[in-house]
């Protein structure tokens, strides 16, 4: 069982942070000392987060408009504030720590697409926006849209990516404390976003076809990071996805 929407609004308010308060000076000094392999891995993960967070932060308006009541709408609004901050954080890291070229976030995003798989770009720049557009047009299908956004994208793709980032940072030859700090804070926010999505799924009457689709989407989405996360991490993400769906009340046959 998952708590009511009021818990998430209160929680979100208590967890606010500012990406510009983080000190990135040690990260800037350490970045040029990364080996080529380390650089490719960390930059790939940063690229994925820049593309992902920019996309998710731009889609929540449709979800907000489709909310079934004011309390749910308030949580979507609180989440939108978080997602915008996550997008700013990863863009800031790409520009000021990794030195990604580009005069603005869009230009840096253009430069970063080459560092991730086409499947990741497609998921965040085509499939998610298409789902949000459909939701905006008819205000129906909120459960399925939440299934893709909160359960698949946040619960599988982003959570797996954040754990991979923290594991990668732990194993580097130099430390990137600012990137680590921000990633930990993003992960903290994501936990309640996933809880919120699970609450919506819990309240819905999910049938077998929808449940199967959510499982399939999760298994496919777990692979969009490509070589940036390990096969073990992918397997763990899929296993957690199934467990989460069951804990949210979905029965599997």
């Amino acid at each position, binding site marked *: *069982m*998952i*708590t*009511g*929407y*009021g*818990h*998430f609004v209160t*929680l979100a308010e208590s967890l606010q942070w500012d990406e510009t308060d983080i000190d990135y000076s040690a990260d800037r000094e350490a970045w040029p000392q990364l080996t080529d392999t380390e650089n490719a891995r960390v930059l790939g993960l940063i690229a994925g987060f820049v593309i992902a967070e920019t996309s998710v932060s731009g889609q929540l308006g449709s979800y907000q408009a489709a909310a079934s009541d004011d*309390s749910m709408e308030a949580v979507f609004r609180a989440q939108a504030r978080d997602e915008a901050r996550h997008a700013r954080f990863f863009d800031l890291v790409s520009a000021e720590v990794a030195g990604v070229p580009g005069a603005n976030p869009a230009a840096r995003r253009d430069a970063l697409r080459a560092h991730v798989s086409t499947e990741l770009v497609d998921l965040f720049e085509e499939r998610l926006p298409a789902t949000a557009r459909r939701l905006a047009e008819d205000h129906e299908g909120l459960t399925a849209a939440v299934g893709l956004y909160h359960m698949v994208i946040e619960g599988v793709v982003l*959570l797996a990516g954040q754990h991979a980032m923290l594991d990668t940072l732990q194993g580097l030859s130099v430390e990137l404390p600012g990137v680590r700090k921000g990633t930990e804070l993003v992960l*903290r926010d*994501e*936990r*309640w976003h*996933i*809880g*919120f999505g*699970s*609450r919506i799924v819990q309240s819905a009457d999910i049938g077998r076809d929808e449940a199967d689709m959510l499982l399939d989407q999760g298994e496919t989405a777990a692979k969009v990071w490509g070589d940036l996360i390990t096969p073990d991490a992918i397997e763990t993400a899929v296993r*957690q996805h199934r*467990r*989460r769906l*069951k*804990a*949210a009340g979905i029965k599997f046959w």
Partner: protein
Amino acid sequence: MSISGQTQAKPETKRWICDPCGFIYEPEEGDPDSGIDPGTPFEDIPDDWMCPICGATKADFRELQPGEFPED
């Protein structure tokens, strides 16, 4: 009945909430997918158990007080 007059829940009926994500552990349901049988008090769950929703640790949970039910 406690000295203060409030009824105290038995361990096997006490519910715990994962503050990071809002999941509530119900002893009567347990968490069979993780090998936690229905009827298992939260206190008896292994320390390395993780929240089925968000993956937070057992230490991230807090006990819900009698009458407290954060459901809107």
